[in-house]
């Protein structure tokens, strides 16, 4: 087993998907054991792949292998895998979270209809996502990109009896599709000039200045649009909160830990090309900052636990883009990894709350669950603190890294904006925790019937909580080398042009991070502590219009709906008018009517008398003969 077998990680869940999709409904327990076995195998196989990868050379790879897929004329389409430190980080995140989510789902989805189908699509998703990060060329990446989008669509719409779920699935599909078209255009533009889909080839050509500056700029911006769509950056963020209609394990796996970070992964993978046209870096940073701050505000007024977490996810993806825009894949990927662990934990804990309270997820009905659900509560607290960025939990280290690299690249203005976003993060996270777990139950009836969930659900919570605590420590050189890596995170994942980046403790930034986190936490605690809402209610009444704006999420949905109603539907009306009256009535029906009317008139030429026909025949021959003679001269 070595890195060349990394494709097995994707192939095994894919095989499980085929079996489950065809026979899942006939298997015992809906075949959940098969799904878990497949993803557990992938999880287990990751370690020999990692060991092999680290033992080769300097332990940085890259490893690549390809076969010819098809050939058109002289043009060959190779398909292959490419394993480098970024891939390794992604594989670690995907296999770990997918494994935990599969186990958790056994408890969460118990007794749901189409239980087998849920596990089948989870396997398809795991296979596609692993394929996406292994792909060595943009074509294969795009195929996997669309496959994960399909899985997202299928799982958001899992409860397709519910109209809201169907609409959310449709919205997610259409919104990400707008980005996907951008990605496709970008891929085609790059291919047109480079003559290859191979990512490393394209990056090399870009660095050598093979592309024209403007050409590459446009192509990379299109690629970034694809990343924005998938990673739900403003203005494409609207689909992700609605995607919470799906089952909660899906929200944890697809809409927090893995699929939505595909955009971040893509930007980091293509970062050398983005660096060549460094105007794009500013675009990436600004989009990330705007997203982080806007969604931070949007999360304020949400009362659905999952919606708060959804906006938080969008915001944290913004953090990752900010880091990528600062030309620091190490910070971006580091935050991606820690975020995957603690956000998956938060979502699964939210799922545990939903099961424990028998399907209640509105904060206005909850509160005081701490004593009823101690394991869920503790793990949720760990996840919240990690998200808020409290040391020494994972989120602190990665957020701190982002602030440091941001300062290096863009200076104080970007740092202060992101710092503000970090305060917002700590604020809504604390609000979420306090209103769900502390204070008096707002609905005593619900609290009375709340019980802790079974070990099949709390197990994954505890494991992910452990990762949320310790995974940030890999930033240290000593921890990295002890685990067999060449060094700390920044010495494993880095941009070749920048070289490895060892961790340096910067007391000023670390201190500032802590202050920001505590500021958010204490403001939130002052507003919501003890289950009293009078302060926050007064705040809402003090500025009712601002509050309305937050509740309505800055009216993005309304704006888009208006654009669809007046713009697209108006244009469609014109097009449909043209189709109905010009194309159909004039063109299609019109020509038929002309023919029919001509026949109605000309039929009178037919007398039915044989001699008339014979005479026309004879005359015709004479005319042709005369014409022939004249023509020949």
């Amino acid at each position: 087993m070595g890195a060349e077998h990394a494709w097995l990680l994707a192939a095994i869940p894919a095989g499980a998907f085929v079996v489950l999709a065809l026979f899942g409904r006939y298997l015992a327990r809906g075949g959940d054991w098969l799904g878990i076995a497949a993803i557990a195998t992938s999880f287990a196989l990751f370690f020999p792949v990692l060991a092999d990868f680290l033992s080769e050379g300097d332990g940085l790879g890259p490893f690549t292998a390809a076969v010819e897929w098809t050939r058109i004329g002289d043009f060959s389409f190779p398909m292959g895998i490419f394993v480098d430190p970024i891939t390794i980080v992604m594989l670690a995140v995907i296999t770990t979270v997918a494994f935990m989510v599969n186990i958790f789902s056994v408890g969460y989805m118990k007794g749901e209809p189409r239980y087998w189908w849920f596990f089948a699509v989870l396997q398809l998703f795991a296979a596609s996502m692993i394929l996406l990060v292994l792909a060595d060329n943009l074509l294969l990446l795009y195929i996997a990109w669309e496959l994960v989008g399909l899985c997202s669509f299928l799982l958001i719409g899992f409860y397709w009896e519910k109209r809201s779920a169907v609409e959310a699935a449709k919205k997610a599909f259409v919104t990400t599709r707008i980005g996907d078209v951008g990605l496709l255009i970008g891929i085609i533009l790059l291919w047109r000039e480079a003559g290859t889909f191979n990512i490393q080839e394209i990056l090399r050509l870009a660095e050598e200045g093979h592309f024209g500056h403007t050409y590459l700029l446009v192509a990379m911006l299109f690629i970034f649009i694809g990343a924005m769509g998938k990673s739900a950056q403003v203005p494409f963020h609207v689909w992700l909160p609605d995607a919470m209609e799906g089952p909660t394990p899906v929200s944890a796996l697809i809409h927090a830990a893995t699929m939505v970070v595909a955009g971040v992964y893509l930007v980091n993978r293509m970062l050398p090309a983005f660096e060549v046209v460094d105007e794009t870096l500013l675009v990436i940073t600004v989009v990330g900052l705007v997203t982080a701050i806007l969604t931070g505000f949007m999360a304020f007024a949400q009362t659905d636990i999952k919606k708060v977490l959804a906006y938080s996810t969008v915001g944290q993806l913004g953090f990752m883009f900010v880091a990528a825009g600062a030309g620091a894949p190490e910070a971006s990927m580091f935050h991606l990894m820690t975020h995957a662990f603690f956000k998956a934990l938060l979502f699964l804990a939210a799922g545990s709350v939903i099961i424990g309270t028998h399907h209640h997820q509105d904060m206005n009905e909850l509160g005081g669950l701490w004593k009823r659900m101690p394991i869920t509560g503790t793990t949720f607290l760990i996840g919240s603190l990690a998200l808020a960025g409290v040391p020494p939990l994972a989120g602190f280290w990665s957020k701190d890294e982002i602030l440091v690299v941001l300062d290096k690249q863009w200076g104080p203005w970007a740092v202060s904006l992101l710092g503000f976003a970090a305060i917002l993060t700590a604020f809504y996270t604390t609000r979420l925790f306090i209103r769900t777990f502390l204070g008096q139950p707002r609905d005593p009836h619900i609290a009375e019937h709340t019980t802790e969930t079974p070990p099949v659900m709390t197990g994954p919570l505890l494991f992910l909580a452990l990762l949320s605590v310790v995974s940030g420590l890999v930033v240290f050189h000593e921890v990295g080398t002890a685990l067999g890596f060449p060094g700390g995170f920044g010495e494993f994942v880095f941009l070749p042009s920048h070289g490895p980046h060892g961790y340096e403790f910067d007391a000023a930034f670390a201190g500032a991070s802590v202050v920001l986190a505590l500021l958010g936490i204490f403001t939130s605690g002052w507003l919501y502590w003890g289950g009293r809402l009078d302060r926050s209610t007064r705040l809402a009444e003090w500025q009712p219009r601002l509050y309305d704006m937050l509740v309505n999420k800055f009216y993005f949905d309304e704006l888009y709906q208006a654009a669809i109603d007046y713009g697209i539907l108006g244009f469609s009306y014109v097009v449909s008018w043209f189709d109905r009256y010009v194309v159909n009535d004039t063109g299609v029906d019109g020509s038929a009517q002309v023919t029919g009317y001509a026949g109605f008139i000309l039929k009178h030429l037919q007398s039915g008398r044989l001699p008339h026909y014979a005479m026309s025949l004879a005359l015709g021959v004479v005319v042709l003969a005369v014409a022939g003679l004249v023509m020949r001269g």
Partner: protein
Amino acid sequence: MVPLENYVALSGILFALGVYAVLARRNAILVLMGIELMLNAVSLNFAAFASYLDPDRVTGAVFAVFVITVAAAEVGLALAIVIRLFRLRATSNVDEAAELKW
């Protein structure tokens, strides 16, 4: 040796007579006979030209035999139609059979 022009002239006269019969006559039997005349004019043309172009071979004569065979079949069918017409209409006048239209 009779020159080719004579054969062609005879064939032309026969064909013109046939056309006249088809166009001018009202009796279906006579129309048929006109058609036969035209066919025979064509056969004569075939035979004459074949003998003129390549006297050793009988290609034109073979064609003439084919035409005669087909004409026999055609007359058999046409006479059957005429008999049906006569049974239905009690006439063999082609002007009476004017239903072949819209």
